Protein backbone atom coordinates (compact mmCIF):
# COMPACT_ATOMS: atom_id res chain seq x y z
CA UNK A 1 0.00 0.00 0.00
CA UNK A 2 1.21 3.45 -0.85
CA UNK A 3 1.39 6.14 1.76
CA UNK A 4 -1.04 8.96 0.88
CA UNK A 5 0.62 11.77 -1.06
CA UNK A 6 0.42 14.63 1.42
CA UNK A 7 1.30 12.46 4.35
CA UNK A 8 4.42 11.33 2.53
CA UNK A 9 5.42 14.89 1.60
CA UNK A 10 4.99 16.08 5.17
CA UNK A 11 6.90 13.08 6.51
CA UNK A 12 9.88 13.86 4.25
CA UNK A 13 9.88 17.55 5.16
CA UNK A 14 9.63 16.64 8.84
CA UNK A 15 12.53 14.21 8.51
CA UNK A 16 14.73 16.98 7.06
CA UNK A 17 13.61 19.41 9.76
CA UNK A 18 14.37 16.99 12.56
CA UNK A 19 17.79 16.13 11.16
CA UNK A 20 18.52 19.84 10.88
CA UNK A 21 17.34 20.59 14.41
CA UNK A 22 19.76 17.99 15.66
CA UNK A 23 22.84 18.91 13.62
CA UNK A 24 22.14 22.55 12.61
CA UNK A 25 24.65 21.88 9.86
CA UNK A 26 22.73 23.36 6.94
CA UNK A 27 21.37 26.51 8.48
CA UNK A 28 24.63 27.40 10.19
CA UNK A 29 26.71 27.03 7.03
CA UNK A 30 24.16 28.83 4.86
CA UNK A 31 23.70 31.60 7.43
CA UNK A 32 27.43 32.04 7.90
CA UNK A 33 27.96 32.20 4.15
CA UNK A 34 25.16 34.75 3.72
CA UNK A 35 26.52 36.91 6.52
CA UNK A 36 30.03 36.90 5.08
CA UNK A 37 28.71 37.58 1.62
CA UNK A 38 26.79 40.75 2.54
CA UNK A 39 29.72 41.97 4.66
CA UNK A 40 32.10 41.48 1.76
CA UNK A 41 29.70 43.25 -0.59
CA UNK A 42 29.40 46.21 1.77
CA UNK A 43 33.19 46.53 1.90
CA UNK A 44 33.72 45.89 -1.78
CA UNK A 45 31.07 48.37 -2.88
CA UNK A 46 31.78 51.60 -1.05
CA UNK A 47 28.47 53.18 -1.84
CA UNK A 48 26.59 56.38 -1.30
CA UNK A 49 22.92 56.24 -0.43
CA UNK A 50 21.53 56.50 -3.99
CA UNK A 51 23.84 53.82 -5.36
CA UNK A 52 23.04 51.62 -2.36
CA UNK A 53 19.34 51.74 -3.14
CA UNK A 54 20.15 50.60 -6.64
CA UNK A 55 22.37 47.66 -5.77
CA UNK A 56 20.99 46.34 -2.50
CA UNK A 57 18.40 44.23 -4.32
CA UNK A 58 21.15 42.67 -6.40
CA UNK A 59 23.30 41.99 -3.33
CA UNK A 60 20.37 40.32 -1.58
CA UNK A 61 19.56 38.05 -4.52
CA UNK A 62 23.11 37.04 -5.33
CA UNK A 63 23.56 36.10 -1.69
CA UNK A 64 20.30 34.15 -1.57
CA UNK A 65 20.99 32.20 -4.75
CA UNK A 66 24.49 31.16 -3.65
CA UNK A 67 23.29 30.30 -0.17
CA UNK A 68 20.58 28.15 -1.72
CA UNK A 69 23.13 26.33 -3.91
CA UNK A 70 25.27 25.73 -0.84
CA UNK A 71 22.30 24.33 1.06
CA UNK A 72 21.12 22.14 -1.83
CA UNK A 73 24.55 20.61 -2.27
CA UNK A 74 24.84 19.90 1.42
CA UNK A 75 21.37 18.45 1.79
CA UNK A 76 21.68 16.16 -1.24
CA UNK A 77 25.15 15.01 -0.23
CA UNK A 78 23.78 14.03 3.17
CA UNK A 79 21.03 12.00 1.51
CA UNK A 80 23.62 10.33 -0.70
CA UNK A 81 26.12 9.58 2.05
CA UNK A 82 23.59 8.08 4.40
CA UNK A 83 22.01 6.34 1.38
CA UNK A 84 18.71 7.51 2.79
CA UNK A 85 17.85 8.49 -0.78
CA UNK A 86 17.81 4.86 -1.85
CA UNK A 87 15.70 4.04 1.18
CA UNK A 88 13.30 6.81 0.18
CA UNK A 89 12.99 5.40 -3.30
CA UNK A 90 12.39 1.91 -2.02
CA UNK A 91 9.73 3.13 0.37
CA UNK A 92 6.18 2.83 -0.96
CA UNK A 93 5.76 6.52 -1.70
CA UNK A 94 5.06 8.40 -4.88
CA UNK A 95 8.15 9.77 -6.67
CA UNK A 96 6.37 13.11 -6.84
CA UNK A 97 6.05 13.07 -3.06
CA UNK A 98 9.83 12.72 -2.82
CA UNK A 99 10.19 15.79 -5.07
CA UNK A 100 7.76 17.92 -3.08
CA UNK A 101 9.24 16.71 0.18
CA UNK A 102 12.80 17.64 -0.73
CA UNK A 103 11.56 20.88 -2.30
CA UNK A 104 9.72 21.79 0.90
CA UNK A 105 12.79 21.25 3.05
CA UNK A 106 15.13 23.21 0.79
CA UNK A 107 12.61 26.00 0.42
CA UNK A 108 12.10 26.41 4.18
CA UNK A 109 15.85 26.52 4.87
CA UNK A 110 16.61 29.03 2.13
CA UNK A 111 13.67 31.21 3.02
CA UNK A 112 14.75 31.23 6.67
CA UNK A 113 18.18 32.48 5.68
CA UNK A 114 16.65 35.08 3.34
CA UNK A 115 14.26 36.40 5.95
CA UNK A 116 17.04 36.65 8.53
CA UNK A 117 19.08 38.63 6.02
CA UNK A 118 16.46 41.36 5.70
CA UNK A 119 16.83 43.03 9.15
CA UNK A 120 20.57 42.53 9.01
CA UNK A 121 20.87 44.21 5.63
CA UNK A 122 18.56 47.00 6.74
CA UNK A 123 21.08 47.65 9.49
CA UNK A 124 24.25 47.36 7.44
CA UNK A 125 23.06 49.19 4.34
CA UNK A 126 20.84 51.65 6.20
CA UNK A 127 17.78 50.97 4.06
CA UNK A 128 14.50 49.67 5.44
CA UNK A 129 14.02 46.25 3.89
CA UNK A 130 11.16 45.03 6.05
CA UNK A 131 8.31 45.37 3.63
CA UNK A 132 5.39 43.10 2.83
CA UNK A 133 5.93 43.18 -0.93
CA UNK A 134 9.62 42.50 -0.56
CA UNK A 135 8.78 39.52 1.62
CA UNK A 136 6.43 38.25 -1.08
CA UNK A 137 9.16 38.68 -3.70
CA UNK A 138 11.62 36.88 -1.47
CA UNK A 139 9.20 33.99 -0.99
CA UNK A 140 8.45 33.62 -4.70
CA UNK A 141 12.08 34.01 -5.74
CA UNK A 142 13.33 31.52 -3.17
CA UNK A 143 10.63 29.11 -4.29
CA UNK A 144 11.86 29.40 -7.87
CA UNK A 145 15.46 28.62 -6.84
CA UNK A 146 14.33 25.70 -4.71
CA UNK A 147 12.22 24.20 -7.51
CA UNK A 148 14.97 24.21 -10.13
CA UNK A 149 17.64 23.50 -7.52
CA UNK A 150 15.94 20.42 -6.14
CA UNK A 151 15.71 18.82 -9.58
CA UNK A 152 19.24 19.77 -10.65
CA UNK A 153 20.91 18.91 -7.34
CA UNK A 154 19.33 15.46 -7.46
CA UNK A 155 21.02 15.09 -10.84
CA UNK A 156 24.43 16.57 -10.03
CA UNK A 157 24.85 14.58 -6.83
CA UNK A 158 24.86 11.46 -9.01
CA UNK A 159 27.63 12.74 -11.31
CA UNK A 160 31.38 12.73 -10.97
CA UNK A 161 31.86 16.48 -10.57
CA UNK A 162 29.08 16.72 -7.93
CA UNK A 163 29.26 20.02 -6.00
CA UNK A 164 31.02 22.00 -8.70
CA UNK A 165 28.44 21.15 -11.35
CA UNK A 166 25.34 22.44 -9.55
CA UNK A 167 26.03 26.20 -9.84
CA UNK A 168 27.03 25.77 -13.49
CA UNK A 169 23.79 23.96 -14.30
CA UNK A 170 21.53 25.96 -12.05
CA UNK A 171 22.48 29.62 -12.51
CA UNK A 172 21.46 29.88 -16.17
CA UNK A 173 18.22 28.00 -15.58
CA UNK A 174 17.39 30.18 -12.57
CA UNK A 175 18.12 33.34 -14.55
CA UNK A 176 14.47 34.20 -15.29
CA UNK A 177 13.68 33.90 -11.58
CA UNK A 178 16.69 36.03 -10.68
CA UNK A 179 15.89 38.69 -13.24
CA UNK A 180 12.27 39.07 -12.15
CA UNK A 181 13.21 39.04 -8.46
CA UNK A 182 15.94 41.66 -8.76
CA UNK A 183 13.74 43.96 -10.81
CA UNK A 184 10.78 43.64 -8.48
CA UNK A 185 12.92 44.26 -5.38
CA UNK A 186 14.69 47.24 -6.93
CA UNK A 187 11.33 48.78 -7.71
CA UNK A 188 10.09 48.13 -4.18
CA UNK A 189 13.24 49.55 -2.59
CA UNK A 190 13.16 52.68 -4.73
CA UNK A 191 9.59 53.12 -3.45
CA UNK A 192 8.48 53.33 -7.07
CA UNK A 193 4.73 53.28 -7.76
CA UNK A 194 3.12 49.84 -7.76
CA UNK A 195 2.47 49.89 -11.52
CA UNK A 196 6.20 50.18 -12.25
CA UNK A 197 7.22 46.87 -10.76
CA UNK A 198 4.12 44.82 -10.02
CA UNK A 199 4.34 43.16 -13.45
CA UNK A 200 7.69 41.68 -12.35
CA UNK A 201 6.03 40.02 -9.40
CA UNK A 202 3.45 38.53 -11.76
CA UNK A 203 6.17 37.33 -14.12
CA UNK A 204 7.96 35.80 -11.14
CA UNK A 205 4.80 33.95 -10.14
CA UNK A 206 4.26 32.71 -13.69
CA UNK A 207 7.87 31.51 -14.00
CA UNK A 208 7.50 29.67 -10.67
CA UNK A 209 4.37 27.89 -11.87
CA UNK A 210 5.97 26.89 -15.19
CA UNK A 211 9.13 25.60 -13.48
CA UNK A 212 7.13 23.77 -10.83
CA UNK A 213 5.12 21.90 -13.47
CA UNK A 214 8.20 21.17 -15.60
CA UNK A 215 10.46 20.05 -12.76
CA UNK A 216 7.70 17.94 -11.23
CA UNK A 217 7.24 16.15 -14.56
CA UNK A 218 10.98 15.68 -15.08
CA UNK A 219 11.87 14.64 -11.52
CA UNK A 220 10.74 11.04 -12.06
CA UNK A 221 13.42 10.64 -14.73
CA UNK A 222 16.36 11.72 -12.56
CA UNK A 223 15.77 9.24 -9.76
CA UNK A 224 15.38 6.03 -11.75
CA UNK A 225 17.59 3.23 -10.62
Amino acid at each position, binding site marked *: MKTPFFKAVIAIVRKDMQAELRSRELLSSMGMFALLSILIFSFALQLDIVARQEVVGGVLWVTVVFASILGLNRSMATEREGSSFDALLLAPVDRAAVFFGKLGGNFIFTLTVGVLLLPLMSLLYNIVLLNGYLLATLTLGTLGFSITGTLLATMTVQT*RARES*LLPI*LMLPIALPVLLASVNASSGILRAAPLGDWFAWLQILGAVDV*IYLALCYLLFGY*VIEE
Partner: protein
Amino acid sequence: MAAQNIQSVPTAVEPSRASRLPRALVALTIATALALAVGLYMALVYAGMESTQGNVQRIFYIHMPSFFGAFLAFSATVVGGGMYLRTRQTKWDVLALAGVEVGLMLSLVNLATGSIWARPIWNTWWTWDPRLTSAAIMGLTYMAYLMLRAGIENPEQRRRFASVYGILAISTVIMTLIIIRIRPDTIHPAPIGGSPQDAQGDFNLTPSMVTALLTNLPIWGLLVPITLMWWRIRLENLRERVDSLKIRLMEK
Protein backbone atom coordinates in the same frame (compact mmCIF):
# COMPACT_ATOMS: atom_id res chain seq x y z
CA MET B 1 13.23 15.23 -39.23
CA ALA B 2 16.79 14.12 -39.54
CA ALA B 3 16.33 11.54 -36.80
CA GLN B 4 14.72 9.11 -39.22
CA ASN B 5 18.01 8.73 -40.97
CA ILE B 6 19.80 7.34 -37.99
CA GLN B 7 20.90 3.82 -38.71
CA SER B 8 20.62 1.15 -36.11
CA VAL B 9 23.84 -0.20 -34.71
CA PRO B 10 24.74 -3.27 -36.74
CA THR B 11 25.62 -6.46 -34.97
CA ALA B 12 28.07 -7.74 -37.55
CA VAL B 13 31.52 -6.30 -38.08
CA GLU B 14 31.27 -4.26 -41.24
CA PRO B 15 33.55 -1.26 -41.32
CA SER B 16 32.33 -0.19 -44.75
CA ARG B 17 28.90 0.89 -43.43
CA ALA B 18 30.23 4.24 -42.36
CA SER B 19 31.43 5.21 -45.78
CA ARG B 20 28.04 4.71 -47.41
CA LEU B 21 26.57 8.16 -47.84
CA PRO B 22 22.84 8.76 -48.19
CA ARG B 23 22.16 10.58 -51.46
CA ALA B 24 19.73 12.92 -49.76
CA LEU B 25 22.47 14.12 -47.46
CA VAL B 26 24.84 14.78 -50.34
CA ALA B 27 22.11 16.68 -52.17
CA LEU B 28 21.22 18.66 -49.06
CA THR B 29 24.84 19.57 -48.43
CA ILE B 30 25.35 20.81 -51.98
CA ALA B 31 22.07 22.73 -51.81
CA THR B 32 23.13 24.36 -48.54
CA ALA B 33 26.50 25.39 -49.92
CA LEU B 34 24.88 26.91 -53.01
CA ALA B 35 22.22 28.62 -50.91
CA LEU B 36 24.91 30.14 -48.70
CA ALA B 37 26.53 31.63 -51.78
CA VAL B 38 23.18 33.03 -52.95
CA GLY B 39 22.50 34.42 -49.48
CA LEU B 40 25.89 36.07 -49.44
CA TYR B 41 25.19 37.63 -52.84
CA MET B 42 21.85 38.95 -51.59
CA ALA B 43 23.45 40.39 -48.46
CA LEU B 44 26.54 41.91 -50.08
CA VAL B 45 25.39 42.95 -53.54
CA TYR B 46 21.62 42.90 -53.96
CA ALA B 47 20.61 44.73 -50.79
CA GLY B 48 21.14 48.47 -50.83
CA MET B 49 23.69 50.04 -48.52
CA GLU B 50 22.32 51.45 -45.31
CA SER B 51 23.22 55.13 -45.32
CA THR B 52 23.94 55.84 -41.64
CA GLN B 53 25.76 52.61 -40.74
CA GLY B 54 27.55 51.76 -43.95
CA ASN B 55 28.52 48.30 -45.05
CA VAL B 56 28.67 46.78 -41.58
CA GLN B 57 24.86 46.74 -41.51
CA ARG B 58 25.01 43.83 -43.98
CA ILE B 59 26.23 41.60 -41.16
CA PHE B 60 22.67 41.77 -39.88
CA TYR B 61 21.56 39.38 -42.66
CA ILE B 62 23.61 36.69 -40.95
CA HIS B 63 23.27 37.94 -37.38
CA MET B 64 19.53 37.58 -37.01
CA PRO B 65 18.97 34.42 -39.11
CA SER B 66 21.73 32.60 -37.21
CA PHE B 67 19.81 33.15 -33.99
CA PHE B 68 16.80 31.45 -35.52
CA GLY B 69 19.03 28.62 -36.67
CA ALA B 70 20.22 28.21 -33.09
CA PHE B 71 16.60 28.32 -31.96
CA LEU B 72 15.69 25.53 -34.39
CA ALA B 73 18.63 23.40 -33.25
CA PHE B 74 17.82 23.90 -29.57
CA SER B 75 14.18 23.06 -30.29
CA ALA B 76 15.41 19.80 -31.82
CA THR B 77 17.15 19.19 -28.48
CA VAL B 78 13.85 19.58 -26.65
CA VAL B 79 12.07 17.21 -29.06
CA GLY B 80 14.95 14.73 -28.88
CA GLY B 81 15.06 14.91 -25.09
CA GLY B 82 11.33 14.46 -24.68
CA MET B 83 11.18 11.58 -27.12
CA TYR B 84 14.20 9.91 -25.52
CA LEU B 85 12.57 10.02 -22.10
CA ARG B 86 9.41 8.48 -23.59
CA THR B 87 10.86 5.84 -25.88
CA ARG B 88 14.42 5.31 -24.55
CA GLN B 89 15.68 5.00 -28.10
CA THR B 90 19.25 6.20 -28.43
CA LYS B 91 18.57 7.96 -31.73
CA TRP B 92 16.53 10.64 -29.99
CA ASP B 93 19.37 11.47 -27.64
CA VAL B 94 21.71 11.61 -30.63
CA LEU B 95 19.38 14.17 -32.21
CA ALA B 96 19.38 16.19 -28.97
CA LEU B 97 23.18 16.20 -28.78
CA ALA B 98 23.48 17.21 -32.44
CA GLY B 99 21.04 20.05 -31.75
CA VAL B 100 23.15 21.34 -28.87
CA GLU B 101 26.44 21.35 -30.78
CA VAL B 102 25.03 22.97 -33.90
CA GLY B 103 22.91 25.40 -31.90
CA LEU B 104 25.91 26.39 -29.81
CA MET B 105 27.94 27.10 -32.94
CA LEU B 106 25.12 29.20 -34.43
CA SER B 107 24.62 31.17 -31.23
CA LEU B 108 28.35 31.88 -31.24
CA VAL B 109 27.96 33.15 -34.82
CA ASN B 110 25.10 35.28 -33.57
CA LEU B 111 27.11 36.69 -30.66
CA ALA B 112 30.28 37.27 -32.69
CA THR B 113 28.53 39.03 -35.56
CA GLY B 114 26.52 41.11 -33.10
CA SER B 115 29.64 42.10 -31.22
CA ILE B 116 31.47 43.06 -34.40
CA TRP B 117 28.49 45.11 -35.57
CA ALA B 118 28.30 46.84 -32.18
CA ARG B 119 31.91 48.04 -32.34
CA PRO B 120 31.39 50.76 -34.97
CA ILE B 121 27.69 51.39 -34.16
CA TRP B 122 27.56 51.33 -30.35
CA ASN B 123 31.27 52.09 -30.01
CA THR B 124 31.91 49.03 -27.92
CA TRP B 125 32.51 45.31 -28.48
CA TRP B 126 30.41 44.39 -25.54
CA THR B 127 27.77 46.05 -23.45
CA TRP B 128 25.59 44.72 -20.65
CA ASP B 129 22.51 45.05 -22.73
CA PRO B 130 19.83 42.70 -21.37
CA ARG B 131 19.43 40.77 -24.59
CA LEU B 132 23.16 40.47 -25.13
CA THR B 133 23.61 39.22 -21.58
CA SER B 134 20.75 36.79 -21.98
CA ALA B 135 22.15 35.48 -25.28
CA ALA B 136 25.54 34.95 -23.66
CA ILE B 137 23.96 33.06 -20.77
CA MET B 138 22.04 30.98 -23.28
CA GLY B 139 25.36 29.90 -24.80
CA LEU B 140 26.76 29.12 -21.37
CA THR B 141 23.71 26.97 -20.58
CA TYR B 142 24.42 24.71 -23.53
CA MET B 143 28.10 24.56 -22.62
CA ALA B 144 26.90 23.39 -19.21
CA TYR B 145 24.85 20.74 -21.04
CA LEU B 146 28.03 19.42 -22.64
CA MET B 147 29.83 19.49 -19.27
CA LEU B 148 26.99 17.54 -17.72
CA ARG B 149 27.30 14.88 -20.42
CA ALA B 150 31.05 14.70 -19.90
CA GLY B 151 30.55 14.22 -16.15
CA ILE B 152 28.50 11.03 -16.37
CA GLU B 153 30.01 7.69 -17.30
CA ASN B 154 26.97 5.44 -17.44
CA PRO B 155 25.60 6.00 -20.98
CA GLU B 156 22.00 5.38 -20.03
CA GLN B 157 22.16 7.84 -17.14
CA ARG B 158 24.02 10.35 -19.29
CA ARG B 159 21.25 10.28 -21.91
CA ARG B 160 18.52 10.55 -19.32
CA PHE B 161 20.07 13.51 -17.45
CA ALA B 162 21.05 15.25 -20.68
CA SER B 163 17.46 14.95 -21.93
CA VAL B 164 16.13 16.51 -18.73
CA TYR B 165 18.62 19.37 -18.87
CA GLY B 166 18.11 19.90 -22.60
CA ILE B 167 14.41 20.42 -21.97
CA LEU B 168 14.99 22.85 -19.08
CA ALA B 169 17.65 24.77 -21.00
CA ILE B 170 15.17 25.99 -23.64
CA SER B 171 13.93 28.46 -21.02
CA THR B 172 17.07 30.56 -21.58
CA VAL B 173 16.37 30.60 -25.33
CA ILE B 174 12.79 31.73 -24.80
CA MET B 175 14.07 34.31 -22.35
CA THR B 176 16.46 35.72 -24.97
CA LEU B 177 13.62 35.89 -27.48
CA ILE B 178 11.20 37.80 -25.27
CA ILE B 179 13.56 39.88 -23.16
CA ILE B 180 13.45 42.98 -25.39
CA ARG B 181 9.71 43.06 -24.88
CA ILE B 182 9.87 42.91 -21.08
CA ARG B 183 13.05 44.88 -20.37
CA PRO B 184 12.43 48.31 -21.89
CA ASP B 185 15.94 49.54 -21.09
CA THR B 186 17.54 47.48 -23.84
CA ILE B 187 19.33 49.30 -26.61
CA HIS B 188 18.87 46.30 -28.89
CA PRO B 189 16.91 47.16 -32.01
CA ALA B 190 13.97 44.89 -32.78
CA PRO B 191 13.66 44.57 -36.55
CA ILE B 192 10.18 43.09 -36.36
CA GLY B 193 7.33 44.89 -34.67
CA GLY B 194 8.89 48.12 -33.52
CA SER B 195 12.04 48.74 -31.51
CA PRO B 196 12.15 49.83 -27.89
CA GLN B 197 12.14 53.58 -27.35
CA ASP B 198 15.85 53.93 -26.71
CA ALA B 199 17.12 51.41 -29.26
CA GLN B 200 20.37 52.60 -30.82
CA GLY B 201 21.58 51.72 -34.27
CA ASP B 202 18.08 51.05 -35.46
CA PHE B 203 17.48 51.20 -39.19
CA ASN B 204 14.52 51.13 -41.52
CA LEU B 205 14.38 48.22 -43.91
CA THR B 206 14.04 49.11 -47.56
CA PRO B 207 12.39 46.53 -49.88
CA SER B 208 15.74 45.21 -51.13
CA MET B 209 16.88 44.74 -47.53
CA VAL B 210 13.70 42.84 -46.70
CA THR B 211 14.29 40.54 -49.67
CA ALA B 212 17.90 39.92 -48.59
CA LEU B 213 16.74 39.15 -45.06
CA LEU B 214 13.98 36.84 -46.23
CA THR B 215 16.41 34.84 -48.40
CA ASN B 216 18.98 34.52 -45.63
CA LEU B 217 16.44 33.61 -42.97
CA PRO B 218 15.67 30.09 -44.30
CA ILE B 219 19.32 29.55 -45.23
CA TRP B 220 20.84 30.22 -41.79
CA GLY B 221 17.66 29.38 -39.94
CA LEU B 222 16.82 26.06 -41.62
CA LEU B 223 19.30 24.70 -44.17
CA VAL B 224 22.53 25.27 -42.26
CA PRO B 225 21.34 23.81 -38.92
CA ILE B 226 19.59 20.82 -40.52
CA THR B 227 22.53 19.90 -42.75
CA LEU B 228 25.07 20.23 -39.95
CA MET B 229 22.90 18.31 -37.51
CA TRP B 230 22.54 15.48 -39.97
CA TRP B 231 26.32 15.23 -40.32
CA ARG B 232 26.69 15.43 -36.58
CA ILE B 233 24.16 12.60 -36.18
CA ARG B 234 26.20 10.45 -38.57
CA LEU B 235 29.30 11.15 -36.51
CA GLU B 236 27.53 10.12 -33.32
CA ASN B 237 26.19 6.94 -34.94
CA LEU B 238 29.73 5.98 -35.87
CA ARG B 239 30.78 6.61 -32.28
CA GLU B 240 28.00 4.38 -31.00
CA ARG B 241 29.07 1.65 -33.42
CA VAL B 242 32.72 1.87 -32.43
CA ASP B 243 31.76 1.85 -28.75
CA SER B 244 29.66 -1.30 -29.18
CA LEU B 245 32.55 -2.95 -31.06
CA LYS B 246 34.89 -2.05 -28.23
CA ILE B 247 32.51 -3.61 -25.73
CA ARG B 248 32.36 -6.78 -27.81
CA LEU B 249 36.14 -6.88 -27.89
CA MET B 250 36.35 -6.55 -24.14
CA GLU B 251 33.78 -9.28 -23.59
CA LYS B 252 35.92 -11.81 -25.50
